[in-house]
């Protein structure tokens, strides 16, 4: 099989000695127009993969910053159809890869089959479902596989070696390593045990590994640099935007 879109991105970055930059923003936040402006700006600033959050009323894996942003997005009238329709229109202007990230219920209601097809048409390459662990994903994964959409798994500090190995059998695209035992939200410090666990994940997975949850500044990832290929930031980008600051300033530190 030829390199998948994600592998290619990560390989190119690796050659340059860099990490893939992967911002997350809930669709339609802070409002429907500004959202697309931010997406285009982040793309131009060099984001490699943009995760578009599909807002859900009950986001159990999220901390207060993302939850609040998602609620505002819902009030702005955003739904999955709006996201896909707009992507179909705007996708051609973006160089980065696009991933949808959300929770089972809105995807389930949309219908996985239709979703996979529409995602492909809209130029989306991957999907992350925060409340879909391996066991529940087995039936759904082939549907996305059939349309060349990578179902990207989340694993974490408490995922045992045995479970990591099970995940390795199914994983596609890249591995999303959750860097804290908690919800999304910027932290000052990452846990001590992260390094050891990333080393283990490196041994087990053939795929690139990105870390996310809790990341806000490059100094945090210095110590674990050699074990990761990409970095996701969500809450810290949202907080930056909330302060009315220029998104350029946020990216400067990373690019």
């Amino acid at each position, binding site marked *: 099989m030829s390199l998948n879109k994600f592998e290619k991105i990560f390989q190119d970055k690796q050659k340059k000695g860099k990490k893939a930059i992967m911002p997350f923003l809930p669709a339609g936040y802070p409002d429907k127009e500004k959202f697309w402006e931010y997406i285009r700006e982040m793309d131009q600033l060099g984001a490699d993969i943009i995760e578009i959050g599909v807002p859900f009323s009950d986001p*159990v*894996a999220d901390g207060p910053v993302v939850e609040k942003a998602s609620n505002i997005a*819902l009030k702005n009238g955003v739904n999955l159809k709006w996201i896909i329709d707009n992507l179909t229109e705007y996708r051609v202007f973006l160089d980065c890869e696009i991933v949808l990230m959300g929770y089972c219920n809105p995807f389930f209601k949309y219908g996985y089959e239709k979703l996979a097809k529409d995602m492909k048409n809209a130029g989306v390459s991957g999907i992350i479902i925060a409340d879909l662990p391996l066991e529940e994903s087995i039936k759904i994964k082939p549907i996305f596989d059939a349309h060349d959409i990578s179902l990207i798994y989340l694993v974490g500090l408490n995922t045992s070696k045995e479970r990591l190995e099970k995940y390795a059998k199914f994983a596609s695209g890249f591995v999303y390593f959750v860097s804290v035992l908690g919800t999304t939200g910027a932290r000052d410090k990452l846990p001590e045990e992260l390094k050891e666990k990333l080393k283990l994940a490196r041994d087990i997975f053939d795929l690139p590994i990105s870390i996310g949850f809790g990341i806000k500044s490059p100094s945090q990832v210095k110590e674990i640099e050699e074990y990761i290929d990409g970095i996701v930031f969500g809450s810290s980008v949202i907080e930056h935007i909330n302060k009315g600051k220029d998104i350029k300033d946020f990216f400067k530190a990373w690019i």
Partner: protein
Amino acid sequence: MKKAYFGEFGGQFVPELLMPPLIELEEAYEQIVPSEDFQREFNSILKDYVGRPTPLTFCKNLSSELGFNLWLKREDLAHSGAHKINNTIGQALLTKYMGKKRLVAETGAGQHGVATATAAALLGLECIVFMGAKDVERQAPNVKRMELLGAEVRPVYSSTQTLKDAINEALRYWISHQRDTHYCLGSVVGPHPFPALVRDFQSVIGKEAKEQFLEKTNRLPDHVIACVGGGSNAMGIFYEFLEHREVKLTGVEAAGEGTPNCYHSATLNKGTLGILHGTKTYLLQTEDGQILPSHSVAPGLDYPGVGPEHAYLKETKRAEYVCVTDEQALSAFKVLCKKEGIIPALESSHALSFALNLKGKVKENYHVIVNLSGRGDKDLDIVFKHLK
């Protein structure tokens, strides 16, 4: 049936970070709960502390008026005033056996929070209860009760500030404190193994009811009726009767005000299939899969989801699910107070209302058991407001 599922309902739709504590709980459910030591200790607390078995009361006055035989399973007489305690004692004890030191729980009206705080106090566990900020305001006496019992009540300000948000927050807390904390979920909802675990702890209700009824009448009842919020008191009394197909089972949901487009909690009657709080079941939701607020005059029925096993019982037609409005429940509440000298919980009044409506539709030798899931002292403020 597929593990963790009841037909197509149930499952474990949680973040990967919650899978290790769920797997740990599954093992405890399979190995510790059936063990002799655990069962002995559990049953002895139920007997000497909770006050089980609770009576099965024949309603003499009402029965002669109704023209059939009405019985009440008296969970209102269990310690702390509702069936909720059966589950919290079970889970608190299991927490000790698992070597954890703290319980986290959600509560809507405060009943499950009070029952969790009670069990935690008895068994020497720390206790944190998440409660929607709106509920903290609406149910102030229960907040005080929980605090008296040594629990810390944490208001939840996100989204609708009610029960569903309290569950979200409890799940989040559990993610980051799983090593020393057990999530004491309050009904037969949530990811596997909770629906089965909570049902098993509540199944004492049906076991006792069947035995008591057999002893008094030498036969099985014709009909068992219970209210359904998440569905724990209903599963608790239904479970023992499932194999007796001649016993009719009815779950009663809350229709709210019962007017078109009003908020309600009649999930099985009016909801659609979806995934919330780790389980696939019927939900009150929009076409886009966003969860809708629910409503009932009975705070304990106010939840936009329902236990997956009830969804299965509905689909297989082993049980039927009906709904009753706020007003009908309030009127049944008054009837029981006046005719039998029992002040029922507004939740239980929903089940009672359906039973009273059987008048004229069944024969004289028809025997109905209503699960009187709780006592109504907690609801007096609400009732007085509506009686005005």
